[in-house]
């Protein structure tokens, strides 16, 4: 019977297997990066209702984080400051600038400012700010150098594996308690030994079992 297939079909298997391998690697690679929080969450920088710049307040003016987020060391949520905190200064400081309009409007009409949440953990993961600050983890470790940000951006994926990495080896991120809000603090060369001393003294034992964060 006549040949059903032309001669060139003989080297088809080789071509197909080669292409298949390449495509597989590309798909796995792209899912590995693009579908992970490293891409979907890092860099999330929504525009807020008020053009508030951390660079000016926390950076240039050097206001400590805990002035506005004052319950961060007592509660698991780091609270967003009420309009009242802004008005402590802005009743006087450039009270009539165009950027201040929404804040003044909120203060006058007693309607809260609807900030847009940047760092979001799922509802079933119970993260506790006060425990981490008490252990000596700086704001920088999770939120990045806020003093450089005009608009708050998420710089860390805050995914479970990212948190677990630190829980398993916290020494990198433990700093003396007074330095937790100091964004320009640089870990010295003997960071691990000094951190280990703090860990032993405070017997820091971050949980890696499920009841640590899920309940």
């Amino acid at each position: 019977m006549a040949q059903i297939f032309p001669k060139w079909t003989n080297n088809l298997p080789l071509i197909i297997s080669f292409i298949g391998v390449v495509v597989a690697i590309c798909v796995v690679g792209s899912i590995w990066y693009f579908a992970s929080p490293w891409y979907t969450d890092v860099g999330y920088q929504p525009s807020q209702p008020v053009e508030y710049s951390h660079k000016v307040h926390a950076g240039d003016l050097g206001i400590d984080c805990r002035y506005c987020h004052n319950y961060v060391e007592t509660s698991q949520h780091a609270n967003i400051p009420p309009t009242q905190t802004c008005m402590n200064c802005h009743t006087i400081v450039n009270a009539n600038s165009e950027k201040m309009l929404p804040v003044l409007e909120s203060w006058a009409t007693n309607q809260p400012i609807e900030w847009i949440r940047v760092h979001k953990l799922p509802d079933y993961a119970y993260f506790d700010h006060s425990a981490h600050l008490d252990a000596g983890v700086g704001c920088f470790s999770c939120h990045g150098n806020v003093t450089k940000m005009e608009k708050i951006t998420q710089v860390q994926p805050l995914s479970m594996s990212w948190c677990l990495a630190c829980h398993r080896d916290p020494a990198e991120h433990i700093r003396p308690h007074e330095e937790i809000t100091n964004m320009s603090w640089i870990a010295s060369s003997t960071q691990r030994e000094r951190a280990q001393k703090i860990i032993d003294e405070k017997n820091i034992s971050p949980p890696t079992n499920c009841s640590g964060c899920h309940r």
Partner: protein
Amino acid sequence: MNKPAENIAVSSEDVPLITGGQTFSSITEKIVGIIEQKTPKTWYLAIGASLSLLMVLMGSVGFLVWEGTGIWGLNNPVGWGWAIINFVWWVGIGHAGTLISAILFLLRQKWRTSINRFAEAMTLFAVSCALIFPGIHVGRIWIAYYMFPIPNQMDIWPNFRSPLLWDVFAVGTYFAVSFLFWYTGLIPDLGTLRDRAQTRIKKIIFGILAIGWRGGNRQWRHYERAYLILAGISTPLVLSVHSVVSTDFAVSILPGWHTTIFPPYFVAGAIFSGFAMVMTLSIIARKIFNLDHLITLNHLEKINKIMLLTGMMVGYAYSIEFFIAWYSGNIYEQFVFINRAFGNYAWAYWIMISCNVVVPQLFWFKKLRRSIPIMFIASILINIGMWFERFVIVVTSLSRDFLPANWDYFSPTMWDILTFVGSFGLFFTLFLLFIRVLPMISMTEVKGVLPEADPHHSTGESHE
């Protein structure tokens, strides 16, 4: 060519496996003829019925995903119901195919050649029906992929100690290896179909599928070795798969489940119900496509003998479980078996006993072993009995276990029944498509078994 009378008891060696004086071309003509002839009207009727059942399956699974597992009759003590029973039952039926093609191949049972393709196809379709159920019975189907060890940004892996995970791997491997084994057996026959194809499309399709098979002995050499290896690994695989399926129950601590007899007992049960399904289907196929000469009465008789054997093994298992429960002195075990026989599910227990233990005893008598109607009814009853065996194991042990305060009665809802009936739709749709498109019996192997195929046959003298 002496034509032996049908039922004279002759020693089995010289009873020809294939009767009716078949030649190579007559076998090809016979088997490929089924495919090349115009589709018979009955086929359309059958596919219509099974497709409607398939729609029922789709509908009930859709509603299940939408509404939740609450639509089934499950409750707190009885967390597993019909879904798991159907899963074990379908996987059990699937094991006959591999058994015929692998274990009987290793045991050099020549008579397997006329039913092995047919049984392997049944395996694939039964296992595909089985694989639906663990998928749909979980509470949150949309994240069932947590079961697979895929690296994820939560850095958490499945728990490899769980028998459910063993199931996923075991039944998955079983499906894959059975498919490979089935395809390997199919390659030469696809070559035949390619060579006989008339229309251009058939030529191309069968040409691609036959991947250029030339029938050369250099190819047969590796082909036979591959077939032998696949048969070699399929044998421990089929025994391990149903043992793993039985560990779903054996690994737990429930009285009535936590027994070491489960793996062999489940494998025997699987072979038993698998052969029963092969029997049911082959009788029907034999009648419609009149393959009496290829699937002879001797084949059916041999199957009956195997069913008798495995039926006795299953019967032994039931009785030994009672004995061990009594012998162990464990009050919970003792209660489970008394409750099975006389408790609120006694009706299911006695259906199981009568179908699985009493019905096969008919096959002690040669006349009954060779009478088609008896065989047909027996095979259906056996499969019903085997379904009730899984029902008794799963539901009675769960409904009454350690603390009497938790005892509760499970009764199925409409959706349980519809999903199970729907799974037959899937099975028969696939089976009917297979019969219509591919050769139901493996021509190469049947030719290989003909006396003419032996190189020393025609010249009479034999050397070396």
